[in-house]
Structure formats: C-alpha cells, structure tokens
C-alpha cells in the first residue's frame, strides 16, 4: 500500500477495511455479530510470512500510525518517529500492521457505527469491551492477512497491555512482545483520572445519556475537558515548565492591568481539547477508558502476575520513561520482575526523558537507539 517512500518515512499510505461476519464472543458475555476493522500496512510481507509486526494503539490512537494520506497532510501518522525506513520498526525489514480497534471511532465498528438491529447509532448500547476482546479481534485480522505468528506485537500504554494479553492468549502466535510505558493494571490514581474524564463527558448537557448522535449533537465541552485532564497526566512537570513556563499569551500581570491574563498553557490545553473533541467520539472515549480500568493481566491467574506470565512463550522488551508518572517506571519494573520470576526472557530499560508518559511518541535518541537495537534481534528471529 506504500506508494512512494521518502527518506525516513513510509510515504503515502491508504487505509483498508476488512469486514468480519463470524460473531465475536466478548468478555462481557455479549457478542458482536459482525464488524469492520480498518487498518494500514507498511512494508512488504516476506515469502514465509515471518516478518509481520502488529502495532497496538493507545487510548486515543488509531490505524494511521505512519506516513501521510496526501502529500500536503499537515501531520503524519501518530508513530512516525518509530515506524519507517531506517527507523526502529524498519519498514524495509518488517511488514507492519496497524489497526483501529473495534469500539474505536476512526473507521472500525464502534459506538458511532450503526447498530444493524435498530438502524440507529450504537451509542452507549455498544458492548463494553475488554483488552482481550481487542486481542481476539486482532487475531482474526491476522488470520485474514495470513499471519500465523507475529515477529513482534508492539504497543505503548494501553497498547502495551494488548501486547501482554497477546502473550498470554496466543502464546504461539508472537515471538516478541514489546511493552512500552505500560502496567500490569491501573493504580487507584489512574482509575481516578479516568473517572474524572468520564464524569466530564457525562455531565455535559449535550451528552444525552450517550444518545447524542440521535439528536445530531456532540458533548464537545465534556470531551474537551476530559482530554485536557488526560493531557496534563501525559506530560511531566518539567516538560510543561519547559514548554510553557508561566509565559503569558495575552493580557498583563502588571499593577493596574484590569483585564484577565491568559497563560500559554491555558490556550494550549484549550486548543488540544477542542481539536480532540472535534475528531473523537465521546462514547469511544468512555469505552476505551473503561477497558483501561478493567484490565488486570493477572486477575484470572489468582492475581499472580508470575503465574500469568508463565503462560507466555515469547521474549519481552519492556521500556519505561523516567518522568512518566501516569505509567511510572515502578509499574514497568513490576512487569519485569514478574517475568524474571516466571523465568522468561526479558530486556528492560528505563529511558531518561523529561517528556513524561508522552515520551513513548517522541524522538528521544537513546530510546530510538535502544528500540532499534532490539528490533534487529526481532529481525534475526524472523
């Protein structure tokens, strides 16, 4: 699907859609009778189909991970720093598959899709999903693409949780599991942030108990506020100080200045919030944050992460970032220590980075070098 490749980028890409008719039994007890998955691929699948890499996206991610749809697109895909020729996930070597998860709002079947039973948008009636539901749907995508075993399943944040779940549910279908800035389960503090985000959305008068699309409305204020809260938690104190400090965007703090002053950080957050609320579905946001909340890798293994990870057969790379407080290095070390105790092959690195949780998306040299070095090993195992 890559038409032209410029240096360091996969170039122009197009999204594809696959329709699935076989009902998908979900963890909540319901099932999804049919659904679409939209995805992109970069690079070429080799003859023995051993060089495929799956990218699992985070809370607000989607299938467009690299390249551009049109030459004049303002922004490339969300993980352009890490996917492309000569980049850690080198598209000259790997066949990269990036999808939009079901429940999403970028083309795959989700709450904004039409429910065939009612001819209305699913809205809040869309089944609650768990991380494992995504993994099962991704396995079906792999079946359709003819991929028996991934060279690696890779994800950051919520995507890292999917990668770990893959290692337990389909231990023979991945050789490497790359878990970046993730956790075995959310902390109470993390649950609390997600609850505030959902509350912001639900408290918006336009939310209409989730049925806003029926009335052609969007709970933009609530969704915007949810994103603003989330955004603060993805950055570190230092990163915000570096980026905005106490700079004023307008007004003055001089004696006698009567009007309100606005800090740069205020306008930045508002901009982020409004951008997001114009392009993301509120019910999807609620669904994704719940999936995050409910994820607990070891729950069905007697709450023992060691027992859980003994079911895996792949090798692991775990990466954390020093100033990430949403998914702190301590959470990554819990994953690593459980893998050590389960006697699994694991490489762990904590990258010094000032960018907080968002560091996993940033061009931090040591991170890229380390990631590249590990992916060479993944390639050697293809």
């Amino acid at each position, binding site marked *: 699907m890559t038409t032209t490749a410029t240096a360091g980028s996969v170039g122009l890409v197009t999204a594809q859609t696959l329709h699935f008719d076989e009902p998908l039994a979900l963890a909540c007890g319901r099932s999804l009778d049919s659904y679409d998955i939209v995805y992109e691929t970069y690079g070429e699948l080799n003859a023995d189909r051993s060089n495929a890499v799956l990218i699992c996206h985070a809370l607000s991610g989607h299938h467009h991970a690299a390249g551009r749809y049109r030459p004049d697109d303002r922004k490339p895909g969300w993980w352009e720093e890490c996917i492309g020729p000569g980049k850690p996930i080198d598209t000259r070597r790997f066949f990269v598959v990036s999808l939009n998860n079901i429940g999403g709002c970028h083309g795959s079947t989700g709450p904004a899709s039409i429910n065939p039973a009612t001819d209305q948008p699913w809205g809040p009636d869309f089944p609650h999903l768990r991380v494992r539901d995504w993994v099962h749907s991704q396995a079906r995508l792999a079946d359709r693409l003819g991929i028996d075993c991934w060279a690696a399943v890779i994800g950051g944040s919520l995507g890292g949780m999917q990668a770990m779940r893959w290692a337990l549910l389909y231990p023979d279908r991945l050789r490497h599991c790359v878990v970046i800035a993730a956790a075995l389960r959310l902390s109470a503090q993390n649950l609390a942030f997600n609850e505030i985000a959902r509350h912001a959305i639900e408290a918006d008068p336009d939310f209409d108990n989730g049925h806003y699309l029926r009335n052609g409305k969007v709970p933009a204020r609530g969704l915007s506020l949810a994103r603003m809260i989330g955004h603060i938690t993805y950055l570190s104190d230092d990163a915000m100080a570096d980026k905005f400090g106490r700079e004023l965007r307008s007004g003055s703090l001089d004696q006698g200045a009567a009007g309100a002053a606005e800090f740069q950080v205020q306008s930045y957050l508002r901009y982020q919030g409004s951008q997001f609320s114009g392009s993301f579905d509120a019910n999807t946001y609620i669904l994704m944050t719940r999936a995050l909340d409910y994820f607990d890798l070891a729950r069905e293994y007697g709450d023992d992460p060691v027992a859980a990870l003994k079911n895996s057969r792949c090798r692991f790379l775990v990466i954390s970032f020093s100033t990430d407080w949403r998914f702190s290095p301590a959470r990554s*070390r819990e994953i690593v*220590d459980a893998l*050590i105790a389960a006697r699994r*092959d694991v*490489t762990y*690195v904590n990258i010094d980075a000032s960018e907080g949780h968002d560091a996993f998306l940033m061009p931090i040299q*040591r991170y890229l070098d*380390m990631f590249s070095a*590990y992916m060479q090993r993944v390639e050697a195992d293809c």
Partner: protein
Amino acid sequence: MRQDLAHILRWIRPGARVLDLGCGNGEFLELLRERRQVTGTGIEIDGDNITAAVARGLSILQQDLDAGLDNFPDQSFDTVVMAHALQAVHYPDRILDEMLRIGREGVVTFPNFGHWQCRLHLASRGRMPVSRFMPYTWYDTPNIHFCTVRDFEILCEQKGIHILARDMVGNSASHALFANSWPNLFALTAIYHITR
C-alpha cells in the same frame, strides 16, 4: 579478549544459565553464548552499554546492583558472574551472598590491592596508588571497596563460601607462575570460582 574473561570461560558449563552482574557492553556474555551456548542475562546500569549489549542480541536488565537483587528467585541461574565490579558496589559482602542465593555457583574477579606495586606506591610515596591498571584518583573513582586476595579469602571463610578454584593474572604471561604462587603480592587480577 580480556584475560580474566578467558579464565572464567573454563568454569562455565555448556548450555548453562548465566547471570552477568555489571555486564558492560555484553562482550563477555556474547563470548559465552558463542563458546558455551549459554542462556545469558546481563544487568547493567549505563544506558550506552545497555544499547550496545542489546545490539549484540543479548537480554539485558537495567538495574542498580546497589539497590539489591531480591527480584531474582533463589537458584534461578547456574552461574552468576561479576567481573571487576566487586570493588565498585556499596556492600560487596551482601552481593556475594546474593550471587550464591541466585546461582548455584559464582565467579568473581577483582583487582588485587595487595599487588607489590600498590604496596610500593603506598609505602614509598605515602599516597593512594594510581596506575595504568587503577587509573582513578582516590576522590573520583568508582572503586570504593578495594581488597586484597587475602582479604577476599578471609571473607569467604567467614561466610562459609567454598572456593572451588582460583586463578591469578599477573603483569604479563611470564608472571603467571609468580602470580599463582604468591597471589597476594603478584596477582593484578584475582579470579575466583565459588559456591556454598
């Protein structure tokens, strides 16, 4: 190849599970993998070293030896190796205990501070030795717990650590006999194979 590493190689059984404490750029683990087909894991703190070791296809954990090793289960490795790091850790005695808790056997190498040149330097100049082999000033050195061959063996005896074998590296190959006959005076590097 560093001479101490060549000596250690003889004590590693083919196919062993090896943990290398302070593995640096992974040179030794790579050698063990090639020559002994070991399953190796390295612990390292320096970022550039970790990247270099991972580029060799090794499994590396970023971890501070001084923060402890209690995340490793008892007897989870055949051999735990620590080359030229004993003198740089906060609690050398505790780390020896940890090595033999985690592994059935341990291999330790360290610079011998009892070497005659060190003694001469200290005796004649009254200053801490600085040489090609120990290039740091006393106030700016990673080496905070120097010991002599005799010190180490006394510690092993006190701890009930059994010395399976030892080997000494002297100034040059021709000094090997001296180094092995009078190690406390002539060994530059001491190499021990230990167990409990």
